[in-house]
C-alpha cells in the first residue's frame, strides 16, 4: 500500500518539476502547487487510515514487550480489544495460547510456532513467516487465568460476526457468562444481522444477560429475566442468583421466582444424572469383573492376579500408542482398536502360562490358590515396574473419546458412553461364546461334571487352560478401556480386584447375567449414596449392605443350581 501511494505523488512531483523547468509563469506554478497539495491531501485522506490503523495496532502490540507483569499485559490486551479491529484476533488468540513471543535482540513481538529446538516466528497481524529464532533468543509473554479470561471476553465481542457458526456460538456463550452493559450495542447489531435461528436465540440470551447488569429500565430487565429463566441451565442459575443478590423490588422477586423454577428442574435432572453416573460406574465394574466371572465364577479359581491382567491390557495399550506416536501418527484414533486384540492375546498368554505353571497343580485347594495367585500378582506388578518404571504412563484419549455432549441438562462424556457400549458388547460376545459355541458347551460341561465330561472324551485339562486364558484375555481388553479413565501404573489392578470379587459374589457365582445385574446395581446404589454420604462413607455403606445380603442369600442374586455348586 505504501509503495503504490508513493508513486502517483512522485509522478506529480516530476511533472511539477518539468512544468517548473518550462517556467511558463508564477501563477501557473501556484496553481500546480495547490493542485499538488490537494492531491497529496486527497491521497493521505484515502490511503493513510488503513496504514494508520495497522501502524496503531503494531504500536499497541509493541507495548507487550515492555509489559513487566500481568496487569500491564492486561492493559495492553484491553487497549487492543478497544480498537475493535478484527485483525487483533490473531495476536490475542496467540497470547491466550501462550504463543506470543518477544525477540530479545530488538523487542519485536511475534507469534511463535514451536518446532524442536527453534521457534518459527510469524508476523502478529498478517501471520506471514518472518524468520526463525532459537528458544534462548526469545521470551514468551506469560499469561495467567485472569488474562486468558479477559482475552476470551475480548475475542467474544470481536468474533460475533465470524463466518463459522460454531465460533459465533462460542462468542455468545462467553458473553453470556461475562455480561457487560457495553455488550448490548454490538449484540443488537449482531442480532439484526444474524440469519441462523439457533445462534440468534443465543445472542438474545447473551443480550438479556447484559441488560441485567446495565442500568436499563425495569421492564427491560423483567423481560430479560423471563428469557434467561427459559434457558434453565446452570449458567442461567448462576447469573440469576447474582442478580437476586444485587437488586431490589420487582426485579429481585422475578429473579427469585425464575431461579426457583430452574432449581426444581435441575433437581429432576440431578436424579437422572445419578442414574447415568451409576450406569457408567456399573459398566466399569462389569468390565473389570467379567473376566473374573469366568475364572472365579465358572472355574472356581480365586484369582488374585486378575487385576494384573487388567493392568497388562492397559500397558499393551500404552505400548501400542507409543509405537503409533513414533511411527504412524496418523493412526492415533485407531490405537484402541489395534490394542484390543493385542491386549487380549498378551493377557490370555500370561493367563495360560499361569494356569499351566501354577494353578493346575492347585485345583480344589482354594487357600493355596489364593496365596499362589497373590504371589503371581506381586511378581507381575514388580516386573512391570522394572520394565516400564514406577511412574504413570501416558495413554491418550483418541478424539472420538474426548469431551462431552448435553442431553437436556445432563452432560454425558464420550469416554464413559463408549465404555458402556463396549462393556455391553463384551458381555454379549462372552454370552454367545458360552452358550452357542462348542467350546462354550465343553466349558460348561467340565464345570458341571468334570468326570463325566472327561469320560465323554473332552480333554478337561485343556478346557481348563483355555477357559482361564479366555477369562484373562477378557480382563486384558477391559484394561484397554480402563486405561482411558484411570492411570496406567503398576498399581492399576489393585484398585479393581476387591470391586470385581464383590460384583461376582453379589451377582451369584457362575452366572454371567448375575455379574451384569450385580455390576449395574452396585454402580447405581453407589452413585445415589455418594452425593449424600460422600465417597468414603458411601463405599462403606455398600460393603455393609453386601455383607448383609450375603448373610441372607449366600449364593448371591442369581444362584446357580446343580452339581457345580457342590464342586
Amino acid at each position, binding site marked *: 500500500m505504501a509503495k503504490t501511494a508513493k508513486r502517483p505523488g512522485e509522478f506529480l512531483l516530476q511533472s511539477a518539476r518539468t512544468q517548473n523547468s518550462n517556467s511558463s509563469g508564477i501563477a501557473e506554478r501556484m496553481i500546480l502547487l495547490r493542485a499538488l497539495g490537494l492531491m497529496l491531501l486527497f491521497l493521505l485522506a484515502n490511503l493513510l487510515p488503513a496504514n494508520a490503523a495497522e501502524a496503531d495496532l503494531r504500536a499497541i502490540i509493541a507495548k507487550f514487550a515492555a509489559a513487566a507483569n*500481568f*496487569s500491564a499485559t492486561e492493559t495492553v490486551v484491553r487497549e487492543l480489544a478497544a480498537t475493535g479491529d478484527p485483525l487483533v484476533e490473531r495476536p490475542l488468540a496467540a497470547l491466550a495460547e*501462550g504463543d506470543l513471543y518477544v525477540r530479545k535482540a530488538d523487542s519485536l513481538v511475534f507469534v511463535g510456532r514451536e518446532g524442536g529446538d527453534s521457534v518459527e516466528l510469524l508476523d502478529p497481524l498478517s501471520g506471514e513467516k518472518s524468520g526463525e529464532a532459537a528458544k534462548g533468543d526469545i521470551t514468551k509473554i506469560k499469561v*495467567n*487465568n*485472569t488474562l*486468558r*479470561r479477559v482475552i476470551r471476553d475480548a475475542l467474544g465481542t470481536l468474533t460475533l460476526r465470524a463466518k463459522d457458526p460454531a465460533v459465533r456460538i462460542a462468542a455468545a456463550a462467553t458473553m453470556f*457468562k461475562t455480561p457487560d452493559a457495553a455488550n448490548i450495542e454490538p449484540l443488537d447489531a449482531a442480532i439484526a444481522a444474524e440469519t441462523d435461528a439457533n445462534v440468534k436465540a443465543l445472542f438474545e440470551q447473551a443480550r438479556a444477560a447484559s441488560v441485567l447488569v446495565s442500568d436499563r429500565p425495569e421492564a427491560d430487565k423483567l423481560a430479560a429475566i423471563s428469557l434467561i429463566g427459559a434457558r434453565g441451565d*446452570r*449458567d442461567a*442459575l*448462576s*447469573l*440469576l*442468583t*447474582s*442478580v437476586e*443478590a444485587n437488586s431490589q423490588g420487582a426485579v429481585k422477586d422475578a429473579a427469585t421466582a425464575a431461579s426457583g423454577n430452574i432449581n426444581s428442574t435441575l433437581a429432576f435432572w440431578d436424579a437422572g*444424572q*445419578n442414574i447415568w*453416573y451409576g450406569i*457408567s*460406574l456399573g459398566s*466399569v465394574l462389569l468390565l473389570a469383573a467379567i473376566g473374573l466371572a469366568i475364572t472365579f465364577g465358572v472355574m472356581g479359581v480365586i484369582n488374585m492376579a486378575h487385576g494384573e491382567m487388567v493392568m497388562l491390557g492397559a500397558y499393551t495399550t500404552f505400548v501400542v500408542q507409543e509405537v503409533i506416536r513414533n511411527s504412524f501418527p496418523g493412526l492415533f484414533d485407531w490405537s484402541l482398536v489395534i490394542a484390543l486384540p493385542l491386549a487380549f492375546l498378551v493377557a490370555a498368554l500370561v493367563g495360560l502360562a499361569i494356569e499351566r505353571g501354577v494353578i493346575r497343580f492347585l485345583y480344589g485347594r482354594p487357600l493355596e490358590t489364593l496365596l499362589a495367585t497373590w504371589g503371581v500378582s506381586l511378581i507381575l*506388578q*514388580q516386573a512391570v*515396574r522394572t520394565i516400564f*518404571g*514406577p*511412574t*504413570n*504412563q*501416558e495413554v*491418550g*484419549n483418541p478424539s472420538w473419546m*474426548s*469431551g*462431552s455432549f448435553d442431553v437436556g441438562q445432563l*452432560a454425558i*462424556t*464420550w*469416554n*464413559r458412553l463408549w465404555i458402556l457400549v463396549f462393556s455391553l458388547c463384551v458381555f454379549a460376545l462372552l454370552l454367545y461364546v458360552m452358550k452357542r459355541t462348542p467350546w462354550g458347551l465343553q466349558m460348561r460341561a467340565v464345570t458341571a461334571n468334570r468326570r463325566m465330561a472327561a469320560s465323554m472324551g473332552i480333554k478337561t485339562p485343556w478346557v481348563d487352560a483355555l477357559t482361564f486364558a479366555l477369562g484373562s484375555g477378557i480382563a486384558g481388553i477391559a484394561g484397554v478401556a480402563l486405561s482411558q*479413565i*484411570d*492411570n*496406567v*501404573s*503398576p*498399581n492399576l489392578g*489393585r*484398585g479393581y480386584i476387591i470391586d470385581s470379587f464383590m460384583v461376582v459374589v453379589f451377582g451369584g457365582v457362575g452366572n454371567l447375567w448375575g455379574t451384569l445385574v450385580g455390576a449395574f446395581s452396585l454402580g447405581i446404589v453407589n*452413585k445415589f449414596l*455418594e*452425593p449424600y454420604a*460422600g*465417597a*468414603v462413607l458411601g*463405599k462403606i455403606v455398600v460393603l455393609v449392605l453386601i455383607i448383609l445380603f450375603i448373610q441372607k442369600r449366600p449364593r448371591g442374586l442369581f444362584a446357580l443350581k446343580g452339581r457345580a455348586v457342590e464342586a
Partner: protein
Amino acid sequence: MRGNFSTITKMVSAGMVAAGLLMSVQARAADDTIKVGILHSLSGTMAISETTLKDVMLMLIEQQNAKGGLLGKKLEAVVVDPASNWPLFAEKARELISKDKVAAVFGGWTSVSRKSVLPVFSELNSILFYPVQYEGEESERNVFYTGAAPNQQAIPAVDYLMSEDGGSVKRWVLEGTDYVYPRTTNKILEAYLKAKGVAAEDIMVNYTPFGFSDWQTEVSAIKKFGSAGKKTAVVSTVNGDANVPFYKELGNQGIKAEDIPVMAFSVGEEELAGLDTAPLVGHLAAWNYFESVDTPENKKFIADWQKFIKNDKRTTNDPMEAHYIGFNMWVKAVEKAGTTDPDKVIDAMIGVSVPNLTGGYSTMMPNHHITKPVLIGEIQADGQFETVSQTPGLVMGDEWSDYLPDSKDLISDWRAPLSCGNFNVATGKCGGKGTN
C-alpha cells in the same frame, strides 16, 4: 543389598570371635566410610513417587564422593525397601540405625510413614531428613523437615487465589484424599478462610478414598457449587494416583481453568507425566520448586539428573529439590561439627545455609524447618509449570499453625536453653498438644 551382606558377614564373625573383636571390626568399618540410610519405598503403592527420591539420593552421594567425600571418608548409601508398608518403615529404620550404623537417614513420603518412624529415631537418637510437604503440627529433635509446612504452600496458594491476579476467588471447594495430611491442611485452610471473612456456606469440603477413580459425582458437585454466581476455585489435596482420573474428568466435563481453577498441593511434574495436559492448561499448583525455574543451579541439576538416570525425559520435582537442600545441609553441618555424632550434627544443623535451586539460599531454622520461596505455577501444554506468582522473599516454615486453636500458642526452638519442640507461650511450659 551390599550393606546387608556386610552386616551378615559381621554377624558371622561375631559368632566366631569374642565380642571385643567385633567392636574393633565395626570400628574399622566405620573408619572407611560414612553410611547414609535411604528409606524410600521401592515397591507397593508409594513406589511411584519414592523410587525417584532414592535415585536422587544415590546421585547426590555419588557427586559428593566425586568431590572427595566427607571428612576425608567416602560416603556409602544403604538402601532399604519399606515396601509402602507403614510398620515396615519403623522396622527398616531400626535396622538402618542399629545394624548398619548409618550417620543419617533420608526418607519417608506419606505422613503416616513419618509418624511410624518417629519413635525409632528418638529412641536410637539418629537423624531423619523428611523431604515432602506435610501438614505441620509437629517438630521433633531428630527430624529435619525440608518439605513445605502449610504456611509455605497452602496459605500462600489461597492468598494468590484471593488476589486480583488469581481471580478474586470468593467460593472454595476443599477436595482431598481421606487421610491425615489433607484433613489437617483443610482444617487449617478452613480456619484461615473464615478468618479472612469467607462465609461457611461458601466453603465445601469433600474427601475421597485413596486411589479413587470414579470422579463423576464429585466433579459435577464442583460444577454445581461453582454456579452460584461467585468466583469459585478448588483447592486440591488429592493424593498421588487419584489425580489422573480427577483431572481427566475435569477435562471431559469441560471445567476450564478460567472458570473454576484447581489449585493442587500434591501434583508435580512427575504426576503430570502420565497425563495429556492440553485440557488442563491454567490449572495451578503451589510448590517451592518447579522444573521450569530458569536458574543456572537448576539447569545443572536437571542435566546431572538426566545423565545419572540415563533418560533425558525424566522430570524433576519439589521433593527432589528438598533432598538436594537437605543433603547439602547435612554435609555442611557434618563439616562444621567435624563429626557425624548425631547430637553434635543436630546442634550444628541450625543456621546452616545452602543454595536452593530457585536462585536463593535456604536456611535451617531453630524449629528444624527451612526457609523457602513459594511459587505458584500454571500447568502448560507441555506438562511443565509456568510460574505466575512468587513470594517476594523466603518464607520460614511454621510448624504450629497460627490458625488452629490448639496450636496457635505453640512454638518450637531446639536451641539451648529452650530445646523444646512444643513450647506453649501462653503457659510458659514445654509440652503442649497440636491437633494430631
